[in-house]
């Protein structure tokens, strides 16, 4: 059976450059994960237990603002004038 994993497309969407060896390795891992999902799908669940369909209503927050709590310097070394600095994304 041909692999259902299009590893090149996944790598492209994840903006990752993978070596041939990594592609083989990760494709195998994805296939193993999907195999588990197929097993889970075989379990017959009652209609009322579909995931995300819990009976309790949503948990809401009231619209109350609190000052921001995470100064960028506290967890990123790539900060300049309060901005996160990243590789340039436009030409």
């Amino acid at each position: 059976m041909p692999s259902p994993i299009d590893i090149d497309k996944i790598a492209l969407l994840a903006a990752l450059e993978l070596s041939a060896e990594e592609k083989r390795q990760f494709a195998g891992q994805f296939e193993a994960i999907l195999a588990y999902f197929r097993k889970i799908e075989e379990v017959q669940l009652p209609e009322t237990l579909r995931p995300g369909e819990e009976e309790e209503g949503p948990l809401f927050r009231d619209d109350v603002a609190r000052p921001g709590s995470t100064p960028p310097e506290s967890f990123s070394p790539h900060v300049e004038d309060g901005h996160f600095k990243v590789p340039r994304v436009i030409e």
Partner: protein
Amino acid sequence: MEFEPVIGLEIHAQLATRSKLFCACPTEFGQAPNANTCPVCLGLPGVLPVVNRRAVELAIRLGLATHCTIRLDSQFARKNYFYPDLPKAYQISQYDRPLCERGWVEIAVAGEPRRIGITRIHLEEDAGKLVHEGRDPTASYVDLNRAGVPLVEIVSEPELRSPEEAKAYMEKMHALVTYLDVGRGDMEKGNLRADANISLRPRGSDRLGTRTETKNLNSFRFVQQALAYEIERQRAELLAGRPIVQETRLWDALGKTTYSMRSKEEAHDYRYFPEPDLAVLRLEPALIERIRAELPELPDAKAVRFQRDYGLSAYDAAVLVADRATAEFFDATVGHGADPKRAANWITVELAARCNEDRASIADLRFGPERLAEMIAMIGRGEISSRQAKTVFDHLYATGRAPAEIVREQGLSQLSDAAALEGLVAKVLAEHPGQVEQYRAGKTKVLGFFVGQIMKATGGQANPALLNDLLRRKLA
């Protein structure tokens, strides 16, 4: 070949909440970069989003005002893409179960009313802001204050047939958002912005052509101009036998052109899936009904009332209600006793022209509706002529001072009319032949005596310059 444009708009409107959609960070504008951030909106591991109740209620309000069906079981979904303005690498949005669906609004272009379908209105979080003009030319700079700010995306059916209709539709949506207090609608801050989809097809055909999307249009004029440009560009391509490239374009307001957006943003495969960190958004019908009951008077209803109660023309009513602040200013001016037609005229002509010149809005005015009502009452009582009222209005607009004061100070009462003053001058001169004699004998200081007499007779209302001039002529 004759082509027909097919246009659809996606409008993003920022919701008027204090805090973000899924965390308590403030939505306040103009803070230091990254000041309004926390582990949730920074996408740090181990955090969970919690929905802002107010944001949901505001989106429902807009949905009801646009005749949408409100879903009692809508769902959030992840839209996955990599870009530095999106710290989680996915945006929490809605996909196949949006909060509001299948509504409509009515627009009018050249007096022709048309109903434009709303496909959906859904909730989503905004992304951060990228700055590319920093110290390091090889870097981009990220400010995540806006990341997680609540938005509604309003998607129209592709039923708009001209740039003018698209502009009218966006104006209508802006009016609704501001009337409903759903958002502040401040276009210059990007509170309301549109992405315009457009394709051309041979007139009469029901096949859709390849479309382009012009993004981030933050003014009514830009929407109209960008679409007009795209129509011409696509027509030229089609006539030359070149295919239209399906792409995202940006509007260059200076060059008045659109251009292809080249960025390192990758192919659009958003791989939507239900957001596992949030339960289905289950709503009680009672909540929807409470929100419906609390809807304020909307622009269309206001326009009907202005015509019915105040006898305004459909055109004047439409101009007044297009902007909420203007409509309220008019209502209040009439509330202070002004004649409605005169008030409508002053507001839609003189006031609109000055605001337009100064790029100001009603909120910036130095005077309130009671002042305009006072001025209109003075015209009604014949205390000032319509021509003089324009001068009074200039001063009112510039200083905000009471019209009666302006009239006194500028000597603008009807006694500025030469004819009215002339009679008075003749009378005073006739009553004081001795002083006239003195003046003619060379004692020109007597002029002050006559001025004093006339000022006394008019309660200081005579225009001094005009009076001096008249006296000199009569005494010569």
